[in-house]
């Protein structure tokens, strides 16, 4: 490291900016008293934009008066509900509730749901087809766990949502991806929308959806699909664009029509990449299905949520583990499909059953368990008597941990709060809004040019003008501290993993598992150990946002040309010099990209931690959700998105500079 760079003239700008900000932040209260100018610390009420009311009014108009001539907007939403509800009901009946005829107490069951044995067999076969018996075993154990530990019913409700949301998300994403591949203007139009979709916190669009579709599984599914689709759009576009041009030319020279080119050449050639998108859709769906339990999706998410609300430690952990187990199983299977090689060709003279042994097995098991289930209830439903519950165990374990380590935990928490969280919080919340706008503009302009500066200033002004300055600063402070800690833990881990093959395997497995977990799950142990508050929120955010810091650091290390390292070695570098003078400078762009991703994940998690009692923008969205106040939700959601966009653009610009200076751009 060259410390002299810190006092170079280029750095003076940043020191100056920091000093002025710090000065204003620590004296803003005195300034307000001295000049009796309350506007310094509070955005004047009279200037606030009535945006919330406008949006809410617009939504009401949309729902009550809007019409497209032939049909009204409300009829449109009902129509969408209906086309989602029908398949969802079938899936739910097949997996969880059984098929019934009639309503309420007159309902007669005409066919039971798939027996637990059949579902497990289907999953095992999927695992075997996707890769091998090892994966099949893993998947089998995961689903057996759900049955044995009494989570089967809820898990199947969740699975039903996944089964419906994933195909819609994949098909929709692929369709939009194909459109933007074919027509560049569609891609240009979609890009900002996708950017916004991925930065607006999930809670924020629960609000309008709740308003449009009402409380219930359909609203939850709509929210889920909206949340899970954007990555599929991007992956599809990129996958189609990266089909080698020669392959496309080979298709042209064979005389393919446009349609043949798409379905016989492009899509099949892009299939492995597309499967990566499908995997993402599945994981996001699972993540969202759980959050969406707030607007009416039942299942495991609902169990966790209500356990959290009751502070039912054991129940929460049990349901949380069930989600983890299911997430791991679905993740591994869908990942295996994306790396799967086409099967060997079987002889043509075999019978249908011989050519499709797995399908035949599944079919046989489903029929057999159906028949057997009519006579032996154990086959149909896993016997309650044989379920185990770990609830009491977890309860005791937590109690023991809390009793034994209470003082330790409190001490750790106090240290963090006193020396890190509170000072930083005071710094950020003290910044007068007017200076905040200027500072954001200056910083962005310095890094990315005056256009970026103006954009950052306008976005910051939007936040202030909606009376959200204070809450936004709390978001920035919590996010900043969490990112700092996640980065301080993650980068060394990544550097270690990047230089050591065995470490790479272990750290990789650990990070993969962390990333498989739905964001909701992180809240459970944190709340159990540290109760509600900023500190708990910080820990949950750090855990959730750790993955990209590690991953990008490791990638940056591994992507360094071996020749560069050899050049360092023959120049006589020690190991330490090699790391600081050769590897880290070369990995800088990668590290910055990792920082960017860490910030994005931290922000998305931060909003969810509103559930454990932060007082930031997340809380604002959460309040809007409970009051079904669309305007409030959207404005607060946009504010979070703007913070994310400013951070993203600034860090990306830094990464770009660093790439250019290394000649890699």
């Amino acid at each position: 490291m060259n410390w002299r760079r810190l006092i170079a003239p280029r750095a003076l700008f940043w020191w100056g900016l920091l000093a002025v900000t710090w000065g204003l932040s620590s004296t803003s209260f005195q300034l307000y008293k001295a000049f009796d100018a309350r506007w310094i610390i509070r955005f004047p009420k009279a200037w606030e934009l009535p945006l919330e009311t406008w949006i809410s009014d617009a939504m009401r108009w949309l729902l009550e008066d809007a019409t497209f001539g032939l049909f009204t907007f409300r009829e449109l939403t009902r129509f969408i509900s209906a086309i989602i509800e029908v398949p969802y009901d079938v899936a739910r009946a097949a997996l969880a509730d059984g098929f019934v005829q009639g309503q309420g107490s007159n309902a007669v069951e005409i066919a039971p749901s798939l027996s637990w044995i059949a579902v497990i067999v289907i999953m095992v076969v999927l695992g075997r087809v996707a890769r091998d018996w090892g994966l099949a075993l893993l998947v089998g154990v995961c689903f057996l766990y759900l049955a044995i530990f009494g989570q089967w019913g809820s898990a199947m409700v969740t699975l039903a949502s996944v089964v419906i949301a994933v195909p819609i998300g994949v098909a929709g994403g692929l369709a939009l991806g194909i459109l933007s591949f074919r027509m560049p203007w569609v891609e240009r139009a979609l890009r900002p929308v996708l950017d916004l979709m991925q930065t607006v916190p999930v809670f924020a669009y629960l609000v309008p959806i709740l308003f449009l579709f009402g409380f219930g599984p359909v609203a939850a599914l709509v929210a889920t699909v909206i949340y899970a689709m954007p990555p599929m759009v991007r992956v599809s576009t990129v996958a189609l664009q990266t089909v080698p041009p020669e392959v496309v030319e080979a298709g042209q020279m064979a005389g393919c029509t446009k349609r043949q080119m798409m379905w016989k050449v492009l899509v099949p050639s892009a299939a492995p990449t597309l499967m990566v998108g499908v995997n993402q859709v599945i994981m996001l769906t699972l993540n969202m299905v759980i959050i969406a339990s707030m607007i009416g999706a039942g299942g495991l998410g609902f169990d966790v949520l209500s356990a959290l609300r009751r502070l039912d430690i054991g129940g929460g952990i049990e349901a949380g583990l069930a989600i983890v187990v299911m997430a791991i199983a679905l993740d591994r299977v869908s990942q295996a499909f994306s790396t799967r090689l086409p099967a060997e060709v079987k002889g043509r003279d075999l019978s249908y059953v011989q050519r499709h042994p797995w399908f035949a097995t599944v079919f046989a098991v489903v029929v057999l368990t159906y028949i057997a289930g009519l006579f032996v209830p154990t086959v149909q439903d896993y016997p309650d008597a044989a379920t185990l519950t770990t609830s009491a165990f977890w309860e005791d374990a937590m109690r023991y941990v809390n009793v034994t380590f209470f003082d330790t935990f409190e001490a750790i928490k106090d240290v963090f709060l006193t020396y890190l969280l509170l000072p930083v919080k005071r710094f950020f919340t003290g910044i007068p809004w007017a200076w905040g706008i200027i500072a954001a503009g200056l910083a962005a302009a310095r890094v990315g040019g005056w256009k970026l500066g103006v954009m950052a200033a306008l976005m910051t002004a939007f936040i202030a003008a909606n009376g959200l300055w204070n809450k936004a600063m709390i978001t920035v402070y919590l996010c900043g501290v969490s990112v700092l800690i996640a980065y301080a833990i993650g980068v060394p881990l990544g550097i270690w993993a990047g230089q050591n093959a065995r470490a790479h395997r272990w750290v990789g497995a650990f990070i993969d598992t962390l990333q498989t977990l739905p964001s909701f799950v992180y809240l459970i142990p944190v709340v159990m150990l540290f109760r509600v508050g900023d500190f708990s929120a910080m820990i949950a955010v750090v855990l959730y946002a750790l993955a990209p810091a590690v991953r990008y650091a490791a990638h940056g290390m591994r992507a360094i040309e071996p020749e560069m390292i050899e050049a360092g070695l023959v120049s006589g570098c020690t190991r330490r010099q090699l790391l600081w003078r050769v590897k880290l400078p070369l990995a800088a762009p990668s590290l910055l990209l990792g920082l960017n991703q860490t910030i994005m994940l931290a922000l998305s998690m931060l909003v969810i931690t509103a559930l454990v009692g932060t007082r930031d923008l997340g809380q604002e969205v959460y309040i809007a959700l409970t009051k079904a106040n669309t305007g409030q939700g959207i404005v607060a959601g946009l504010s979070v998105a703007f913070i994310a966009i400013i951070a993203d653009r600034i860090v990306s610009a830094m990464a770009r500079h660093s790439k250019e200076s290394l000649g890699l751009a």
Partner: protein
Amino acid sequence: MQRPLKMVCRNVWKLYGPDPAAFLRTHPDPTSDQLREGSMIGAVRAADVQIGQGEIFVIMGLSGSGKSTLVRCLSRLIEPTGGEVLFDDQDLLAMSEHELIQLRRKKIGMVFQNFALLPHLTVLQNVAFPLDVQGVPRPKREARAREMIETVGLKGREDYFPRQLSGGQQQRVGIARSLVVEPEIWFLDEPFSALDPLIRREMQDEFLRLQGLLKKTIVFITHDFDEAIRLADRIAVMKDGRIVQTATPEELVMNPATDYVAEFTHHIPRGKVLSLRSIMSPGTGDGPYAGDLKSTDRVADVADRVEAADRPHRVLDADNTPIGTVDGRAVIDVLIGRKASA
């Protein structure tokens, strides 16, 4: 050697830059300076090519010389900015998309540098792909594909996937696929460049064997001058988008048009390229002679015989008329690269 023309391209241009068509309209024959001023890149400049029926026409150039762009203009994978491309006297550039698809389905085959096999299809399905696209029923297209697979020597590997084959085998699949529709013109875009030198040699022999069987009209792209010399009936040498010289290998070696072409010909073993016609002393006396040789014989092939004889050999024309004589010294001049003694 006059052949009927299969493909002709006249004054073909391919420019990249802002509104290249308008630029070419205002500057019908832009110089390098004009191109630079208009911030245009001239990928192909004023290309004229005439390819005869059954000819192996090689386009040779280093990377960035525009040879791949030119062959893509000929097959209309790239839309030329200006000029004419005729295939069997039909204007290729005026064809509708539908006509073009029909033409490619029936009459054109193409082999690619990196094979461009479809990863999700087996060897059999890959070779049958062009027929599949045309809607040929499965038994018929598979029978035809099997024939082609056997022709390129991959029988027994019909059910392999591309990833299970070596590079040379993959290119054999690419060749089989391009020939499965029995095309009239066969484009090969650096087909052997991605292969190891030994395999490349083997594939060149295979290529010559196939051509001996099939007698296609061929446009072959390469950056390897040795390969060009070995395979070509005629060679077009390209540099910076322009065709510098179009000639038979022998003419190229004997009379390189520019220093650039001469650079390539320097290290070529002349004996393998030159025929007796170009080194003989014209006119025949009464003899006696050690024997008769054909004027098309390559010097290297007859060197032993000529050198061992104590008298000159007589050189005969295609219709066996004696047209000149050749002695040991002339042969040695060629073999050791000495300027011919007058």
